[in-house]
């Protein structure tokens, strides 16, 4: 699946987008898997209450299942307007 990062999550991880092969069943499992990779991921995901997640461009919860999902995006709370 494609994993996208926006705003300070993108800056902390250092890339806007990457392709991830994973068997994670839920968003939370994917977060745990990425956090174990490198410090920059662990730093970005240190406090998931400060993060939002979208699955295929729809807001979702961290316990949402990933089956069939093609695009996951992590970002801070939105500040439009």
């Amino acid at each position, binding site marked *: 699946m494609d994993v*996208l990062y*926006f*705003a*300070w999550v993108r800056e902390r991880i250092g890339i806007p987008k990457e392709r991830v092969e994973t068997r994670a069943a839920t968003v939370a499992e994917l977060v745990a898997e990425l956090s174990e990779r490198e410090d920059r991921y662990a730093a970005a995901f240190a406090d998931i209450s400060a993060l939002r997640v*979208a699955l295929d*461009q*729809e*807001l979702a919860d961290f316990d949402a299942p990933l089956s069939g999902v093609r695009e996951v*995006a992590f*970002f*801070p*709370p*939105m*500040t*439009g*307007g």
Partner: protein
Amino acid sequence: MRIAVQEEQFDLGAEANSFARGNVAHGAIVTFTGVVRDLATGDLDVMEIEHYPGMTERALTKIAQEAQKRWSLGDVLVIHRHGRLEPGERIMMVATAAPHRKDAFEAAEFLMDYLKSRAPFWKKEITRSGAEWVAARDEDENALGRW
């Protein structure tokens, strides 16, 4: 309904006029415009607005459709910019048309409240002393409770 997510500036007068011309059957038109304001310290150089192409348009369309379901509306217009904006530049506008003003005002407020916390935009303030992402405010999230 027109949803525009764009980098370039927009002409508020031209947009408002063209919106009004397309809604002659409606007696009330409300427009709201958001402007980049300078910081209290007066040293904002640039506001950078990042967004999530694809999701942004989907989220704005959904919010506008929800407004059309809840109120008796004519047309709805949402324009939101991204990229680098200077203090005083217009960030976004919404316009609503309705037979009566109450629907037009309420729908415009609803659009603004949802757009602030549910459309994937992020603002970053660049000043001489550095750059900082704007933090979401609890009151913006709480504002959704009234709808």
